[in-house]
């Protein structure tokens, strides 16, 4: 199996095979909800950080009893449904946070209705300045102490630095793969890259580094992709499912860049652990490429997008989000005001449901957009 095939398979399995391998060694696994929860800290405790995903969800029936289908997103409901059905019983702990109203409530309901062996709620500030940084540093120290006491371990500075180095290697390798897409004829598709990122969220980072290194080598022997109608940037939320990317590719688009969770925001910037490790860990996470949950994040996000549009020779932006996501929802309002500054056309928001994606509607709208911008 090639590295790409292995990674693609890992992205589509939940739990993936590394879970049983890890458990068989007598190690513990802690789930985490959001990319603002520092995986380094969990890893430094000798635990496997496992990103909670909706991969494998078959519906939302049980979750719908507790979360309203009229206004709560299908992603959080799908995850809660899986939890209520026992799909996450392999976890030894769970870390929730205030990523958004949907996610935090799904976490609270999960813990309240079925419980978890270890529950920690990490408060993550919604903006970045000296005050919020101090608060977040305290929150991370609380998480450290809680992990240490529950799992009978010590998170030393040395362990933390080591974990940061390993995850930064992940990020650097992913960035090098993404940069391949700057080429006129890249050797990896956006949907493939998306799967590669998803896979890395829930496997040991050491194993991930090995797979990524193999993938970098494999790419050199892959045929370049010349046959496409337009170079597409995906802006918004596509979650842990590559279907949206595949729809774009099915109608001739080539996704070359994105500003998404489970996308470049995950790995574009390394974390810097210098000086006090907890202070710098907190700073790195608060200042990472910002998700729309961050109150003060739009300007940086917009600059990142503009830079990438130039670097990746983007023809147009597809703006997308989960139905009922207010934080991503207001982004199109901001973009509309900056239409000229953006420099390329962008689509009206394309709304997705996580379970039961209406492929036909999206395909029609994406194809129409590509017709307008194709080279």
């Amino acid at each position, binding site marked *: 199996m090639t590295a790409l095939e292995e990674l693609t398979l890992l992205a589509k399995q939940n739990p993936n095979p590394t879970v049983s391998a890890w458990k068989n060694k007598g190690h513990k696994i802690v789930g985490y909800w959001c990319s603002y929860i520092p995986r380094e800290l969990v890893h430094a405790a000798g635990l496997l950080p496992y990103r909670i995903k909706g991969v494998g969800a078959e519906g939302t029936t049980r979750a719908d009893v507790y979360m*309203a289908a009229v206004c709560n997103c299908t992603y959080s409901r799908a995850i809660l449904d899986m939890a209520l059905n026992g799909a996450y019983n392999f976890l030894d702990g769970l870390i929730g946070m205030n990523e958004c109203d949907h996610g935090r409530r799904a976490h609270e309901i999960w813990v309240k209705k079925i419980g978890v062996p270890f529950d920690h*709620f990490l408060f993550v500030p919604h903006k970045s300045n000296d005050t919020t940084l101090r608060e977040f540093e305290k929150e991370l120290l609380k998480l450290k102490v809680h992990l240490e006491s529950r799992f009978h371990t010590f998170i030393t500075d040395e362990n933390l630095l080591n974990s940061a180095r390993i995850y930064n290697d992940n990020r650097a390798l992913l960035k090098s793969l993404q940069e391949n897409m700057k080429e006129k004829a890249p050797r990896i598709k956006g949907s493939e890259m998306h799967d590669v990122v998803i896979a890395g969220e829930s496997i040991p980072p050491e194993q991930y580094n090995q797979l990524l290194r193999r993938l970098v080598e494999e790419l050199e022997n892959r045929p370049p992709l010349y046959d496409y109608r337009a170079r597409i940037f995906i802006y918004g939320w596509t979650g842990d499912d590559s279907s949206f990317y595949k729809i774009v590719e099915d109608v001739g688009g080539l996704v070359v860049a994105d500003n998404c969770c489970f996308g470049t925001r995950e790995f574009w910037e390394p974390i810097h652990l210098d000086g006090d490790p907890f202070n710098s860990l907190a700073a790195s996470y608060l200042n990472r490429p910002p998700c729309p949950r961050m109150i003060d994040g*739009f300007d940086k996000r917009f600059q990142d997008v503009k830079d990438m549009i130039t670097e990746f020779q983007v023809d147009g932006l597809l703006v997308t989000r989960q139905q009922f996501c207010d*934080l991503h*929802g207001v982004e199109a*309002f*901001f973009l*509309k005001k900056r239409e000229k500054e953006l420099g390329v056309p962008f689509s009206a928001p394309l709304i997705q449901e996580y379970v039961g994606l209406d492929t036909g509607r999206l395909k029609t709208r994406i194809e129409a957009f590509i017709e307008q911008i194709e080279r």
Partner: protein
Amino acid sequence: MTSKRDIIFKEFDFSKKPELKTDLLHTIQYAIKSAISQRDPVMQWIWQPSINAIDDMCAAAEDPTDVVLIGFNLAPEMIYAMGLKPVCPEGLSFLCPTEYLIPYIDESHKAFIPDHLCSFLSGSIGMAISNAIPKPVAIVHTSQPCDNSIAQSTALADFYGVEPYIIDSPYYDNDEAYDYFAVQIKEGFRYLEQMTGKKLDIDRFREVMARSQRAHELVHEINELKKRKPCPIPTGAILRQLSIGMYGQTGSEHLVRWLEKHLEDARERAHKGIGGQHEEKIRTAWIYAWPSFEWTIYEWLGKKYGAIPVIFQASEYFYTPKSSGDFDDLCRSLAIRILSCPMGRSSRGHLDYFVRDSAYWCKEWSIDAAIFAGHLQCKANWSVAQITKEVLMDELGVPMLSFVVDALDPRVTSTEQMLGYIEPFLEMVAENKELEKIG
């Protein structure tokens, strides 16, 4: 439409394209005063908080150099302390008559504001982009109670090109959380000084906080009286007016005067052993939203079922700010007061706040029936409804009705549809009460 009931509900005709009002503030002012003038003169004082709110906003618009936009979950004390004029855009959505508000909601959607954003907020954004709200000199907001609030405050700031100051609300309710918020209040004062060129007058801050404390003390006294049977309030509508005052006017003299009048009236009724205009048979708690496009419905429920609103989430305040008068202490007291305000408290933090507060009200105020009118766009609260229902029934035997509404927009759930949910529920509650009597 006239129903088969002997009461007339409002008619809304959305088939015509409604117009955006050129002078929205004064249009609202006129509509409010006209509506109140048609009420029984003896009862007109009840709606004074609405009049105060719109009068203050109209006055602010006349000289917008001192206007500060604030979120409804940010207490106005900060703005009063600076000698500035608070304007709460979502408060304006609430005060705006339905037929005037709808086009502003729709206008926001045209500008790519999502249709699942809270209509209080999308309505206010629609007003802003239609130039119906004066451009502010500063914007102070909080991240509570929900994501909608973050989206709205950043959208307004972006539209006006005004750097906002948005206080990051903590998840928890503890000393550390209060300190975190208090530090940001201090930073907020510095922000206001920079944006407006005015200096904080500490003596004025003390006076404002003293009035805020007095207002909270009065609310507590009123709430204690509400435990009496029958509930000694003239009409359920007064609960909504109390929420308008407490959200938007704490720290003002006129709110204190109105609450004193409210308390005096409640005391007198309690002394006489009387309630409002209808005989009390079922004590209801509106533990979440209260649809406000048709107030006649509550009169009808009182008349037909004796269903009296005793609790309304947005008018229930737990914490009374008390301070030594020292600046740090004033800020901390204000922090706790903001974090404890309705919705802020129950929506930003763990779901247990909503659940336990609801159970507390139902128990302490001897509630017979709880009603969760779930505002369509309220993600944080809709995901608490089922657990609350289970707890109220399991622990207290209090049944809870939940249904979808948009508290401002009758296109989602009409008055008739609401009655379709509420009437059978109240009939069931009444039957059960009868059965209990029989034993």
